[in-house]
Structure formats: C-alpha cells, structure tokens
C-alpha cells in the first residue's frame, strides 16, 4: 500500500530525451493505467518507477520518500513482465519462493504465503510443475503470484496481457480487476490497448512521445478528451475527424463549413474568429442515419460490418474522406447504399489548429 509521486521526471539515453519531465500523483490503492502508442515512453516510465532504469532528472517518491537512488529490491515493488520472466529451471513453487527466500523469510511463512497466492490464483495443482509445462495463461498467473507473495507496496504490470489470445486476455483482465478489488493495493499497469485501459483503470494516464497528454478517469477521457490525440486514441471504433473552417460568427454561435462543403451552425464556449481552421470530432455512435435530404453528411457505404449486436458502417464522403458509423443492432445496410448522416444531439467536439479542444460534445 503506497502513494507514488513523480516530480518532473526525465529520462535521457545519451543525448536523446525520451521522458520529458513527467508530473504525476498516484493515490494509495489506485489502479492507474499508462496507455499510449509504442515508443511513447510508458514502459520506460514504469521501469524508472521499478528501479530498473536510472532516473536522469526529477524525483520518484514513494510514501513521501525519494527513491531515486534505491535499488529495485529496496523499493519493495513487484513487477509482472510482458514475457512473464519466470525462472525456467525452477518449479512454480520455487519461482514463487525465490523473492521471499532472498529476503530470508522463515520457511513456514514462505509456505503459507505461497499457499495464499496459489488459492487466490487457483494454481494449486501447478506448484510442482516447471514454467515450460504451463500454458500462457497459467504462466501469467504464476507471474502475478510471484508479485503477490512479496506483498509489495505497489504492483507494476508491463503489458502483461499482450502475449495472450483475445479470449484469455479478457479473462485475465477480469481477474486482475478482481485481484485489485481484493488486495486494494496501488497498481500501475502499462498497455497500448485502450480497451484494457478503459476497463481496468481508476485513472488513465495517456502518454505520447514522453509527455502526458491527459490524466483522468476512463469516462472523463472518453467524454472530454483534451486534444485530438486522446480523442482518437480512446474509443473503438476510432472517433471521426472532419476538417472545417469558421465562416461566420454571431456571439457564441458560429457557422462552420466542412472541407466537403457541408455547413452547420454550433455554439462555442468563447467566440471564435472568422476564417479559423477547426477539426470536428464525432464518435461513430453519435452519427445517425437519417432520411433523404436530412443530416449533414452524405456518402456511399463502402463496407458494412455486421457484428450482431451492432453494425459498423464505413462511409466514403464525396471529398475523399471516410467516416465510421456505429449503429445499434443489425442495420439493413449494404455496400453501395447511399447514406445521410446527422450529428446526433450536436454531440461533437471541436479542436483548434493546435489540436487542443475548443468545445466538448
């Protein structure tokens, strides 16, 4: 159980700066997910917290103490690796015991903690096997078990589910969630998968190119993305973006002309200036098919994906762009159909040329 504070944390490899002064506070018991595309620095940041990577500048503080110069072992954290990193020559029991034996824990205590972890993760019958004889999901459990027995101050997960197949990944996601509810420990979880981020996190930290783009609860980020990057990164299918220009301003209301020539009028929190370039962001579920002569966009259906519970429709616009539409249920739409689309309830975001949000949906 611990609180973690990052204070202007910087990482440089030679002259290359990969983490640009990160400030972050993680409260005791919080489940925080670092998410971002590959190369955004999320794993590096986690490894700096773990003590596996030196901190070039700034401070990492656990429960108020700067731990920059403490070795990984002394920080009392545990990490679950993407590759599981189980010791291949040791039985599962030995793998679980290794850290405790290293610390010199009494034998009885080790046995008891292994039993506890095995019960939680339901790996009792695997204890005498070697990692080579386990399936991916079982190895993952053992790797988590190795973290649990240490009773760390903070659990660190480095893309732990990315080597599992889709079904197992979903299952482990649920289990990790359950584990967090049971242990109530502080957990930091790194992933590039926005679904994992949305489903697991109390708090999501979106990273890009070594900088924090936005921090917030999953729904805060989904509903009120700070910029085009966050808006596009979270949500599947991805948010649609349409280029446009402000053509007329009347106080807090303004006319916008889209790149394809369509016009619409909307409100702004602060009056924009005429001629200003903007980007509209609309989630696929906020685009609604409407009758002939209605709606803002018109285009030809390229592909209609029937998922049973919903239908994803990819619509080609006359100006060359494509938008994705999500329709609840099994829509009777096929490739080649013409489709008129309305922005349901004015639920669209507007972003400025600096990619920052101007108006939330």
């Amino acid at each position, binding site marked *: 159980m611990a609180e973690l504070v990052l204070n202007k944390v910087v990482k440089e490899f030679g002259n290359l700066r990969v983490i640009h002064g990160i400030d972050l506070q993680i409260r005791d018991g919080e489940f925080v997910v670092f998410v971002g595309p590959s190369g955004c620095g999320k794993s590096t940041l986690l490894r700096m917290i773990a003590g596996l990577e030196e901190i070039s500048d700034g401070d990492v503080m656990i429960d108020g103490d700067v731990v920059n110069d403490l070795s990984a*072992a002394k920080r009392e954290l545990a990490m679950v*690796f993407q590759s599981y990193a189980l*010791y291949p020559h040791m039985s599962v029991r030995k793998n679980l015991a*290794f*850290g405790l034996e290293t610390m010199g824990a009494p034998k009885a205590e080790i046995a008891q903690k292994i039993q506890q972890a095995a019960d939680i993760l339901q790996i009792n019958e695997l204890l005498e096997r*070697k990692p080579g004889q386990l399936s991916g999901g079982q190895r993952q459990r053992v790797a988590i078990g190795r973290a649990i027995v240490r009773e760390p101050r903070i659990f660190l997960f480095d893309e732990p589910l990315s080597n599992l197949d889709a079904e197992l990944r979903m299952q482990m996601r649920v289990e990790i969630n359950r584990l967090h509810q049971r242990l109530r420990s502080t957990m930091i979880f790194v992933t590039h998968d926005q679904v994992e981020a949305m489903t697991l996190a109390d708090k999501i930290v979106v990273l890009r190119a070594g900088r924090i783009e936005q921090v917030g609860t999953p729904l805060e980020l989904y509903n009120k993305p700070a910029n085009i990057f966050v808006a596009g990164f979270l949500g599947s299918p991805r948010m649609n973006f349409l280029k446009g220009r402000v053509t007329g301003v009347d106080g807090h209301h303004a006319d916008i002309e889209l790149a394809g020539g369509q016009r619409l009028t909307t409100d702004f929190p602060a009056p924009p200036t005429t001629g200003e370039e903007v980007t509209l962001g609309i989630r696929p579920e906020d685009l609604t098919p409407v009758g002939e002569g209605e709606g803002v966009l018109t285009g030809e259906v390229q592909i209609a994906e029937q998922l049973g519970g919903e239908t994803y429709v990819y619509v080609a616009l006359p100006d060359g762009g494509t938008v994705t539409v999500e329709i609840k249920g099994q829509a009777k739409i096929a490739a080649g159909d013409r489709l008129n689309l309305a922005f349901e309830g004015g639920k669209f975001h507007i972003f400025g040329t600096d990619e920052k949000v101007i108006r939330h949906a």
Partner: protein
Amino acid sequence: MPSTASGRLSRFWQKNGAGYMFLLPWLIGFLGLTLGPTLASFYLSFTDYDLLTSPRWSGLKNYEYAFLYDRRLGNAIEVTFTYVLWSVPLKLAVALGLAMVLDRSVRGVSFYRATFYLPSLLGASVAIAVLWRQLFGADGLVNQLLFMVTGIQGPAWVTHPDYALSTLIVLAIWQFGSPMIIFLAGLRQVPQDLYEAASMDGASGWRQFRKITLPLLAPVIFFNLVLQTIEAFKAFTQAYIVSGGTGGPVDSTLFYSLYLYEEAFANFRMGYASALAWLLLVIIAIFTAIAFGTSKYWVYYEDESR
C-alpha cells in the same frame, strides 16, 4: 525386365552415384587415415611390433605390462590427471569470468573479444610453446618481472620438476578463447528479463549468478567441460616442445600422449604404444560417461518436460 543383381546395382548407381562421388574425398580420408589406422592399432595392440620387422602376435602381453609393471605409465597417468584436473576447471572459470565481463556492452567489446581469442588460435602451436619456454626460463621475462617487482630471483620454471607442469597448466588456461566464445553465446541466450525479475526480487549479483546464470548456462558448461576434458587428456605439443620431447625434467611433464609417442617413435614399441592409445580411449570414455551420467542432476535443458 527381370531384376538381376547387376540391374539393381546399375539402378542404385544411377540414383546415388553422384552423391557418392561427392562423398569420395572425405570417404578416402576417413577410411585411409582414421578408420584404417584405428582398426590397425587395435590389432597391433596385441602384437610385438618394432616398425621394421612385421608384427608378432603376443596376446594380452602389452596390456598386462601396462597394468602391472609399467611404472613410467603410472607416472604419466598421474601427470596427465593432474594436468586435466587443474587446467580444465581453471580454464573454464577464466573463460566464464571473461565471457561475463565481455557480455556487458563495453565499448569496443568486439576488439577485446578478438584479442582474448587470439591465444587460442596460436595456443597449440609450436611457436607458442617455444615462446613459453623462453618466458618461463631461468632468465625469462617472468623472472625478470618477478625480480623487478619483488626482488626475488625466481627458479627456472620450465626446467624445475616442481614447477614445470604448472607452467603447462598456465599455458592451457591461457587458451581460454574457444570456451569463452561458447560461454558468451550461452550468456546471450539468458533472457535479460530474468535478471530484472531477480533484481526486483532482491537478489544480489552473486545470487543472480548462482541461481540464474549458472543453472541456465549448465548445458553450455557441460558441453565445454566434456570438450575441454577430452582436449586436455590428448595434450601433446606443449609438453613435447617445452620439455624438448623428453617429458622432463624427471618425467614431470610426461603427458600420456607424450609417453605414447616416445614408446612408438623413440623406443619403436609400436605394439605397446597401440595398447596405450586404446587405454587412453577407455580413460576418456569413462570420464565422458561420468560427465553424461551425472549431468541429469545438474544440467537443466529448456525443452525438457520433466
């Protein structure tokens, strides 16, 4: 067409002839230079043969002499065992130590790797053995350095019965290059994650070495151990050159192969030398068998399903 023997042969030749033609250079060498002499020596080991007159059958007499009466052989075996038991573990330890140093990404690591390997390329050569004799001679570089640093006048290492074998062991250790390269390749196979996991588990460098590096390297250690042991039992050139072909002083560097060579080509007892060769084969086989037999207790293979 009826299937005659000659028909079958010609079909066989048509199908496989080219392959055998390609095999021929090796086959000639193998039959003429390896298998032939090996079988011949087995026969000769039961004969009296002085290279000049034709061999005379003598039954088990050579073996009887070797086992019961040959005190020089006893000495040669002792010298060889001493050499093997010291040089192999020390050489492997040095090789592993340097491989671990080189495994870190030091600047210019490939230069060091090549440099450290160099002695092994030259090692078994006559030139190095000659150089060794100079280095460890009474006025050699080693003694000059020793005198400069400590003021002690060192003995003539290579000609002193107490030290001559040690200089050969040092020479063997110096040729750590090929096991080092193999260790280096083995170390590269150990996933970095395991060390990171261990360091998060609080394991010190020494504990990581003992609990992760050594067990995961065991197959490579085993391979090097077997190879180097066989190599050491067969050692010849170094002792021959340094001792001037005598195994001296006072038979202190009389390696098994050197004694065998002396018996064959200095004393012209080819029959006895052949028996010695077969005894050496048996000794090496026993050591190798011990290594393989115990390996299941200390060698872990990644793919085993135990």
